[in-house]
């Protein structure tokens, strides 16, 4: 590189000389951006062009009219009323509600389980502590999908039926479903009862839903346990010592002193885990639970409307994620303010 000739004596009011644009550090960034932007635009134009051409050829150009056509398939368990004569959009809505139901229930369950296990890893009892560790290490290193099919095919589908069903106080586990006690007619507390060899109760969950919940709760519980453990570990040791020197028991110390302080660390971690849980609920299709993804898959197979179905799916999951994020950010603000 040739050295630049010495500059002429600089006058006081001068601005630095302008170099040719290809060596100007103010210009280069814009050139880089323009080139990258142009390449990306070209790629998108190329893909979209192909998409439009191929869809036109297949007679599948973007249209939403099929949403109004009758779905023609049934959804075995739907919270909102649904039958095969209702249009596709109702089917997708029913699937979405099923997804939300699964996410909400397993979110609560996984949080409870994770908190307990996270607390257990600080127990005085060595056995309990190690058990918590083993649970986390086992669950995290086995694919969720494998766990789900295990719960479904190995555990829930091998449950006995009728009299032989597993009867716990208020709950009966049978191959035909999970029967849970609840408020029956006239606001009386009704437990599961066997009528003509068939169990009946105010609240019945399908084994598919049961397997999905169990799988999601056990899996997410392990990750949440790690978040809780990290949060508790982040609280200075002096807090434990101060509390126990005041005579507080182990549990009281944890509940009254340590956990409230650790929330600051735990809540952002929970946000990530909740979003993963919402996304993971789409694996419901493997255990035959009709969630949004499963309805979408059936819809695609029947209508061939790949692009529209994908758009619906992506929009739904992104909205769900944003919703969870917004709620958790609100909660986070609450926890952080209380700290001061």
């Amino acid at each position, binding site marked *: *590189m040739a*050295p*630049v*000739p*010495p*500059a002429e004596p*600089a*006058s*006081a*009011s*001068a*601005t*630095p*000389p*302008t*170099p*040719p644009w290809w*060596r*100007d*550090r*103010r*210009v*280069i960034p814009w050139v880089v951006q323009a080139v990258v932007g142009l390449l990306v635009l070209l790629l998108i134009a190329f893909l979209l062009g192909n998409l439009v051409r191929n869809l036109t050829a297949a007679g599948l150009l973007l249209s939403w009219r099929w949403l109004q056509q009758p779905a023609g398939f049934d959804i075995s368990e739907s919270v909102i009323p649904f039958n095969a004569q209702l249009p596709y959009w109702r089917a997708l809505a029913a699937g979405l509600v099923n997804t939300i139901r699964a996410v909400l229930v397993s979110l609560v369950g996984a949080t409870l389980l994770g908190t307990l296990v996270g607390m257990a890893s600080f127990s005085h009892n060595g056995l309990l502590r190690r058990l918590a560790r083993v649970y986390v290490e086992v669950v995290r290193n086995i694919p969720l999908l494998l766990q789900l099919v295990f719960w479904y095919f190995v555990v829930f589908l091998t449950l006995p039926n009728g009299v032989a069903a597993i009867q716990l106080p208020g709950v009966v586990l049978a191959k035909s479903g999970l029967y849970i006690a609840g408020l029956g007619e006239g606001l009386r507390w009704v437990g599961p009862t066997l009528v003509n060899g068939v169990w009946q109760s105010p609240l019945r969950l399908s084994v598919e839903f049961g397997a999905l919940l169990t799988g999601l709760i056990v899996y997410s519980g392990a990750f949440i346990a790690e978040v809780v453990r990290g949060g508790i570990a982040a609280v200075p040791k002096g807090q434990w010592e101060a509390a126990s020197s005041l005579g507080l028991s182990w549990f009281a110390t944890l509940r009254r002193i340590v956990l409230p302080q650790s929330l600051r660390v735990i809540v952002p971690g929970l946000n990530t885990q909740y979003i993963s849980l919402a996304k993971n609920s789409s694996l419901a299709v493997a255990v035959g639970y009709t969630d949004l993804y499963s309805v979408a898959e059936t819809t695609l197979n029947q209508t061939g409307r790949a692009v529209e179905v994908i758009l619906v799916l992506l929009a739904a999951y992104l909205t769900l994620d944003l919703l969870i994020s917004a709620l958790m950010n609100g909660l986070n603000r609450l926890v952080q303010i209380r700290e001061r």
Partner: protein
Amino acid sequence: MSQASSELMIEARAVEKWYPNGFHALRGADLTVRRGEVVVIMGPSGSGKSTFIRTFNALEDFQKGRISVDGIELSNDLRNIDAVRREVGMVFQQFNLFPHLSVLENLTLAPVLVRRRPKAEVEQQALALLERVGIAEQADKFPGQLSGGQQQRVAIARALCMEPRILLFDEPTSALDPEMVREVLEVMQNLADDDITMVVVTHEVKFARHVAHRVVLMADGVVVEEAEPEVFFTNPSHQRTRRFLDQIL
């Protein structure tokens, strides 16, 4: 102490800089540094002194005025920026040693990569430089295993290994524990005795008094006073300088 030659190493005229947030950090700062000269820049925090010397090797850009370093006009020209950085060494307040490289590798990285010199030769030179700053026995350690003073001496050796024509020091002793300041200042004094051109931003009055050829006071983005050490510390011509000296002495 040797006399400075008349050859200009740094010539900065009416340099003005605005940060992207609109802060007007330099408001027409001037400075001339001759070959072999040691110039100390002092001033209250926020006076723009760090920003000013960081413009000399283009770590900061500037919008108005001119700076030429060793005859190279600094502008937004990438070619000149690269050329200047090869000729100007910099020592930072926070040392900025590369923690993933050993002390020796810290020294040899740039000469091998930038100057494309053979590795064996650079290593010989690096060991000699470490000897010169008094830590040859630490060559195979990692920066994290050294004390702050040792790290800063390695940083000086690292800058020297590129054989720069000018050395810039940005508050080299401010992050050090008091007992380590002296070992670093001694190294810097030795460099000054070897006629290396140095621009030093520092609060060390003793160093400024005994080593510098000239002391400069910056305030509010301009050079307020420029004088020989004796004059600067005993009989400054500006009120602003007197106020500053009252605060630090």
